[in-house]
């Protein structure tokens, strides 16, 4: 294990990423419309302590994958900053020694591995790119070691990706990500393309590797049950903003934001055979034209005039002191904690 170090592995400070989705100039002039901006991520702050896992959950279009890309530098922020181990990300990315310390695992193991490369070349690429070892024999030994570490055989290095199942391919992606000895891994939906029994294998593997190598994870998922199994802290996103950020057990035992509560309600659970649920109505609005005030207000059973007018900031929630929540109802104490969100 590394020495305890209080500098967060990664910190985002009010980071935002907007995309210009305007139509071409002439069409825009003809239709007399302005520019259209999609606020994929709109001012998000969080920190990940070394050796821990922070998860971001939310539905499609909430901006969680954009955050993943922002923190590894695949996108630059529109404003705000990303700080990697005390250093601005843009500076850190300029230095290959710093760049080596972060890696990413993607969702689809069928798309993220080059089908024309042998597995050993896929896994060895970061070793060569960062110049970690020069001799071919050493690279071979290291690739064999990495494949063993993720539960494959060193002999599998000879094969091509199509010879492997989805779960094995995701193991190859993990081996490749680990090959540069990173400390920080960004995992964007690493198990959502996999079957459940295989998902369990990969999640267990990720936990083992974290314990053994002291890795820090940013874990992006839409699956709350998976998030509960792997996270130390959890952030819930809605329309490009964090609505709740709390230690995992606090969040799952006492969710505070009405959206978090609605999500928990919505998950079908094995232990609930034949249960009748009351789903929250409506759908996620468009991030191009988000609702005024709190973005969740059109669907929120607790919304009032203030929620329509004023955008809530992240505040400490009364009752669960470690929870940050962006909700006027929680602030004003009219959130009926412990009762069902929608009366039956």
């Amino acid at each position, binding site marked *: 294990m590394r020495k305890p170090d209080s500098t967060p592995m990664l910190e985002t400070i009010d980071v935002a990423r907007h995309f210009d989705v305007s139509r071409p100039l002439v069409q825009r002039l003809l239709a007399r419309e302005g520019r259209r901006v999609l606020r994929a991520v709109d001012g998000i702050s969080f920190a990940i302590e070394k050796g821990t896992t922070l998860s971001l959950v939310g539905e499609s279009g909430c901006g969680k994958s954009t955050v993943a890309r922002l923190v590894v530098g695949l996108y630059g922020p529109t404003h705000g900053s990303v700080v990697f181990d005390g250093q601005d990300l843009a500076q850190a990315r300029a230095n290959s020694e710093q760049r080596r310390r972060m890696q990413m695992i993607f969702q689809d193991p069928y798309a993220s591995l080059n089908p024309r490369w042998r597995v050993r070349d896929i896994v060895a690429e970061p070793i060569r790119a960062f110049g970690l070892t020069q001799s071919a024999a050493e690279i071979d030994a290291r690739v064999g070691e990495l494949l063993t570490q993720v539960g494959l055989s060193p002999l599998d290095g000879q094969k091509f990706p199509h010879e492997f199942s989805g779960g094995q391919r995701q193991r190859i992606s993990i081996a490749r990500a680990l090959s540069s000895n990173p400390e920080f891994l960004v995992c964007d939906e690493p198990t959502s393309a996999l079957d459940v029994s295989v998902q369990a294998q990969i999640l267990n593997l990720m936990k083992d590797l974290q314990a053994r190598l002291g890795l820090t994870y940013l874990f992006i998922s*839409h699956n709350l*049950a998976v998030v509960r199994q792997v996270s130390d802290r959890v952030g819930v996103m809605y329309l490009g903003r964090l609505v709740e950020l709390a230690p995992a057990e606090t969040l799952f035992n006492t969710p505070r934001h009405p959206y978090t509560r609605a*999500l928990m309600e919505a998950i079908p659970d094995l232990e609930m055979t034949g249960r009748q*649920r009351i789903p929250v109505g409506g759908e996620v609005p468009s991030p191009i034209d988000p609702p005024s005030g709190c973005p969740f207000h059109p669907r929120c059973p607790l919304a009032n005039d203030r929620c329509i007018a004023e955008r809530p900031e992240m505040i400490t929630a009364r009752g669960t002191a470690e929870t940050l929540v962006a909700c006027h109802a929680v602030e004003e104490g009219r959130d009926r904690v412990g009762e069902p969100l929608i009366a039956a």
Partner: protein
Amino acid sequence: MTVPLLEVRNLRVEFPTRRGTLVALDDVSFSIAPGEVLGVVGESGAGKSMTGAAIIGLLEPPGRIAGGQILLNGRRIDNLPYSELRKLRGREIGAIFQDPLTTLNPLYTVGAQLIETMVTHLPLNPAQARAKAIEWLELVGIPAASQRIDSYPHEFSGGMRQRVVIALALCAEPKLIVADEPTTALDVSIQAQVISLLKSLARDKGTSMMLVTHDMGVIAETADRVAVMYAGRIVEIGAVRNVVQQASHPYSAGLMGSIPPVGRRLERLQQIDGSMPRLSSIPPGCAYNPRCPKVFDRCRVDRPELMPAKDGNLAACWLYAEQGVPRHA
């Protein structure tokens, strides 16, 4: 026991390939009673979607039914000519697929598609069908249905589109609905809405449903009985509560155990090592034997058929032959 609405007997589906014939479904038998919801679960490639496709006569060539029978209301439907099959689809069997965007024709308004379906199958003229179409859209929870009926599929969001697909599948009032992963493409909060809609409509209309999904949570909430599939065969079938909470077959038990619970945190998830065999290399004996924690000699040689197991479930596992669990247990 009532007369089943749908009966599948020893269904076998083959895919001829250059390297020999692959058996995608092997000896699949089950039935669905009127008004019953049967869940079909399993991992990708287990044959669950293939079973649904065989029933509606939409197997992708070169796949073909090589053996067995499919009976709807006692009438064989697996050997019907194409024209007969067309009358059957929509009228007697409705289908809901995973991706609502590819199910709907993007060039026609949703109203036109609903009206076409109803005029084809029901004794209605277009004006009556239009009124009925608006009713259906209201029923599936589309706001301002009388205006939205003239919208095109792209003008709806994903959840709303899936509601239109449900209306389309139900509008000719079929007796059976084959729903193949109806909520997989949707977000959780929308999933919950669509599932409760499907459930209540099926109940109100007395429609039977075959619900194919890999999401056990959805099955647990919706289905009456569940069939678990593995490598082209049904390995267990029984009442939903029994299968979910005390599965008989080691594979079903492993599958249920590997689902992460949302209610609590586990130090380690239960995992099934290895992966499902490819169709070209299904092991002899029980297909699950290389991964099974309870494997013994017979499993590697003889293939088990479905036999009575715990709590009235049927399981294809030699454990129950050896232990001689009484049928009424």
